[in-house]
């Protein structure tokens, strides 16, 4: 790379410009061809990638709102409206990607995408709520880089199921071994921090959104998916 577009042998200075461009003709031609090819690739593939990205979330929506069984049966008449909501706070405002789920014409609930710091890296969560945000209908871990074998267990179905049906009125708390109270979540063995990160994230999201999530204030980008 260090010789990029230059010539180390001294060239008479009068001809340098011409010489430089002339020498680089192959590069220019390649740039032309490659630019065109890449742009074509972009045009062709970017919608697919965008759809992949969205689908990753959308695929989970029925499961999160309607319960685990519904994923297999694919209920018909499910509408999902993606949008964003801005929550004004003391500090910087928070943005959430939310998905309004309408089943057979009636609001079935919300799915919220939220990101927070975990033990290792960021944790990306989808949280399902009932239509009036009084209860959690499920959570799903979209992305995490927690310790494999320990913190990574936050993605396990068994652990996530604890969240289903928890009321949002009181913040959830993490206990070690044997959750008893309705707002308690069992920590994963050896990964209390990861467990607490997830619960904290859920609590924060709930607190931010409770009572504020109504179709009126959400900026819906477009209606994307109709499951039928």
């Amino acid at each position, binding site marked *: 790379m260090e010789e990029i577009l230059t010539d180390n042998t001294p060239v008479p200075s009068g001809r340098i410009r011409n010489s430089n461009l002339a020498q680089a003709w192959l590069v220019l031609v390649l740039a032309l061809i490659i630019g065109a090819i890449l742009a074509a690739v972009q045009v062709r593939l970017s919608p697919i990638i965008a759809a992949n990205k969205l689908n990753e979330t959308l695929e989970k929506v029925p499961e999160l709102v309607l319960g685990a069984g519904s994923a297999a049966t694919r209920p018909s008449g499910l509408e999902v409206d993606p949008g964003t909501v801005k929550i004004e706070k003391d500090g910087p405002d928070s943005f959430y990607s939310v998905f309004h789920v309408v089943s057979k014409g009636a609001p079935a609930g919300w799915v919220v995408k939220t990101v927070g710091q975990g*033990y290792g890296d960021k944790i990306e969560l989808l949280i399902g709520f009932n239509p009036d945000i009084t209860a959690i209908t499920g959570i799903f871990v979209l992305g995490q880089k927690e310790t494999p*074998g*320990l913190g990574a267990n936050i993605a396990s179905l068994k652990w996530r199921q604890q969240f289903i049906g928890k009321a949002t009125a009181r913040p959830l708390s993490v206990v*070690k*071994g044997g959750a008893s109270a309705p707002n308690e979540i069992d920590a994963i*063995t*050896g*990964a*209390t*921090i990861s467990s607490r990160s997830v619960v904290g994230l859920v609590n924060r999201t709930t607190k931010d959104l409770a009572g504020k999530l109504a179709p009126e204030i959400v900026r819906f980008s477009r209606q994307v998916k109709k499951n039928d």
Partner: protein
Amino acid sequence: MGMTIQTMMRDVLIALAPMVLSAIYFFHWYAVKQLLTCVAAALLAEMLFTRMRGRKANLGDLSAVVTGVILGLSLPGTAPWYVGVIAAAIAMGIGKIVFGGLGMNIFNPAMVGRAFVMIAFAGSMAASGYVASRLNIDIMSQATPLNAHKQLGAVVSLQSLFWGNTNGSLGETSALACLLGGLFLCIRRVASWEIPAGVLLSTFVIAGAANLMNLSSPWTVAHHLLGGALLFGAFFIATDPVTSPLTPGGKWIFGMGIGALVMLLRLFSGYPEGVMFAVLLMNSLTPLINRLTIPRPFGGV
């Protein structure tokens, strides 16, 4: 003087005796089993790996035994057998022999082994590894004092920390035993007193500051000094001559660095305890410390 490598190692073993005894007193056969596993595995590994290098193993210098005992004492008694075996094999293989054997290693072999299993088998090494051993152990049956503090905000009484009737790795629970053995080492000059002094001093200062800033209440300075593996680490692990700096000045820096890192990790990191990581990190800095603390020769500028 009559001091040879062998007598040095023998002194270390004598100094480790109080910890071994307290471990056996508090953890019964868990301790015996773990220690035996580690020592046997360490000896075996040393023999195997030196043989692989086509050399004759010299187990008589007792260094492998010392590594085995320190390793055993730094593991929870209830950790499964393979933890001790793997830790010992890693300690000897990657921690020592690959660098050329005794005296050449950059990192403390026991800590290399322990770090490996600590990360590899976090499940059996973390809080839940410390299963209740049907004993008169204070408060938590399933947590070391530091774990209890970090995760649940619980506090273990200072008396328990001092005498050692708490849960924890075999050798670290009793501050008294650590002090006894450690002072013996320092008096015999097998360990340099500068290192533990540095560790304790900087821990004291930082823990004090943290206390004042209310970062680590209800744990006080005394808890930080007596709790966890701090004393064990300061007297037995950090003072490993091979992996610590040569000069008194360097030893001070080394000790203070360990203390500072321990407190950084204890206060902020995801791990409840930081002695092992702190020692490894400072080990890695030892060559640089040595380089920076070349003493001024007599009459030099």
